[in-house]
């Protein structure tokens, strides 16, 4: 249950975390989630399955005595699931009054993406995963798909 990092717990201020994104990988793409939502990153651990849940909800983990729900980002994006390996991580986010874990292939870095490097996705591209992407940010020559957390968590 070792915690990898306790990110910015003390400095959750708008100024210091503005424009900061935690980037992670799913398949070959890089994604970003606003650091304001991120509570911590924990490594993969035993997940207890819960019946009658949407397929992308993996189950519950014990986060130091708190029981939190865990989603598989791959399944949420409609992509085939992948064997969990050394790099597989759970990003713990807090959104409204939910605390949730997101299973991702790998966590990369925290990147600063200023507003002028962010553009809306081209409307022509309408893949399934697209509905969860709010914007596209550029870091150097790399492209990061920035997650729309609200839509990502919506259970219809």
């Amino acid at each position: 249950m070792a915690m990898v990092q306790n990110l910015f717990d003390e400095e959750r201020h708008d100024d210091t975390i503005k424009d900061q994104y935690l980037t992670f990988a799913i398949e070959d793409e890089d994604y970003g989630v606003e650091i304001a939502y991120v509570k911590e990153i924990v490594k993969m651990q035993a997940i207890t399955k819960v019946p009658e849940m949407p397929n992308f909800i993996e189950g519950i983990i014990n986060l130091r005595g708190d029981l939190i729900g865990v989603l598989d980002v791959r399944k949420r994006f409609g992509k085939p699931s992948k064997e969990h390996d050394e790099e597989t991580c759970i990003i713990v986010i807090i959104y409204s009054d939910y605390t949730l874990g997101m299973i991702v292939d790998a966590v990369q870095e925290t990147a600063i993406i200023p507003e002028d490097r962010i553009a809306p996705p081209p409307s022509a591209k309408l893949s399934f995963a697209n509905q969860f992407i709010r914007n596209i940010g550029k870091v150097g020559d790399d492209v990061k798909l920035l997650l729309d957390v609200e839509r990502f968590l919506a259970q219809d």
Partner: protein
Amino acid sequence: MSDFDRESMLEMFIFEMSHLIDQLEATIVQSESEYNIDQINEIFRIMHTIKGSSAMMMFDNIAGVAHSIEDLFYYLREENPQDLDYKRLSDHVLGGADFVKEELAKIQDGQKPDGDGTDLAKAIDKFLQSIKGTGAEIPEALPPAADVPVQSVAKKQSYTAGDTVYKYRARIYFQDGCEMENIRAYTLVHNLQELATEISHEPQDVIDEETIPVIRKNGFMVEFASSQDYNYVYSHLLATVYLRELNLEELSAVGAGASPVPVAIPVATPVAVAENVPEALVLHEDLPAAAIAAASQPDTSAASQDASQRKAGAAAPTHMISVNVNKLDALLNLMGELVISEAMVTQNSELEGLQLESFNKETRHLRKIISNLQQTVMSMRMVPLSATFFRMHRIVRDMCRQLDKDVQLDIVGEETEVDKNIIEHIADPIMHIIRNSIDHGVELPAERSSRGKPAKARVLLEAKNAGGDVLIIIKDDGRGINTEKVLKKAKTNGLTTKPDAEYTDREIQQFIFLPGFSTNDQVTAYSGRGVGMDVVTSNLEIVGGTALVDSTPGEGTTFTLKIPLTLAIIEGMSVLVAGAQYTIPIVHIIKSFKAQPENLFTDPSGNEMITERGEIFNIVRLHEFFNIEGAVTDVCEGTLIMLENGEHVVCLLVDDLIGQQQAVVKSMPKYFKKVRGLSGCTLLGNGDISLIIDVAGFFDK
């Protein structure tokens, strides 16, 4: 004041008020026939606090009613009139309490407390006038110390009669964590205005929140002039809400007045001392003995002694603090975490094979401390039943007066503790049963006498520990349950499932817990509408408790409520389905067994059933119910668990039993929608998670 502040203040206000009202009712009901001076003081103090707090929250109607009751008790305290109509007095006070309760309920629902208390206040004032009228026969100047052992009330009167104006300086410290000290200081000043003039205070601008830290650090200092004497002012200030420490100092007295003794001169001496050291706010009793001796004024030291005695009395309640339940929950979580990480450290795989004599000794010590800590944390959530029990006095009293019955309520074992969450759910069941006992069970005094019973009926309310459960027993000596009538009623309502003759008395008696059941032909204000006893069962179900009734015709009825000590921990049976653990609350389990192929059969619509000892039960496959893949599908290979929920029984198929263990109950993560058949989850001792089965989910298809 922002909404948020007001919100949290309201919460505090409601908590404080309900507590005071409970205290008030307990005090009154205990002493209905006659009040002693302590009880009068207590009621006066409660009313004073209610008045102050509600004025602070600007609920003027509550403050108005409280004010008239306070006036009434002020008179009682000061004049100690004889031959009071205590019954009427109690009615007035309880009426006031009811009014406050009603308004509180409105506030709690987010409504405006718009009740009109003026009629009530007028009635109380009128009552006061009538006492004053009869009280005139009593000589105005009571002999000192007559009937008033502790308080020097009589002496005070002679002081207050005069025009002497005393100057006081008070320094007030509020309890730590009471919050909004500045508003409390403001209220204090506001309240002082009734009896004092020339009020000045430090810090000055108390409305400004910036002053909060100053008040916390240095206390709130207020100087004022009043014609009331030291004792009166002291007790007035003592009624301040969340008071931690009060230093009241008399600065000087001006004017001659009718004081029988020259107070002004001796008291001036202490002032000289105080003025030499302006910053050192000395208490009366802290003054150099020489100064008092020089004053040769016995009254001063008597007064200060009195004050110090009261101060000691007022300090006692601060041994209790109220804590937000969420904080306790968080503590409980951390506790669980500590237990797990302790195991991870002491059983760390890197320690394997090492010779660690002293390490092992220290870890044993650590484990002992942790388990003590765990018990302490659990015990913090436990609350004695006394408040809930004593509230019943009021119900019994009101019912007796309305139904012309004479009932004595005896309370035993009220110190028994149960979890905070459970208390909330058992107050209603207890109330319903007591109402039922008095309304249906207890006969009228004349009828009792003719049957050779004492005219005064007795209802016993008892709590006791029994293993991991608490038993609450409500026993009356009334006429008992008429089984014939109950069975007839059950039959007309279609509740019977077998021939009449097969029912035992005990089985028939349990019918009364079913919805819509009342044998009382007449509907009274209290019962007979057929709601009530089923509330008992449904409320108890929430906390995992059960109710039993046992009655002997002509001799009385005993209700026994069995409730678990705590909701935070349940006794559960762990079962395995497709590799995952589930926990079934043990209270629902009748037995577990292996099925034999010859006992199984299936009806045309595919419902599986089993005969076990001549009875037929439905089979529910847990893996089918939850759509779990990879479970044991052969009924004979898995294990069947016979579950009961009220009257219904079902057999649940699981892969295997793991064993019985205590489980710490947690709710499901908020993000998850409710799943039928699951009530929550639990952390097992090794940190694994198991889902808790909600047995009721298998029945209401």
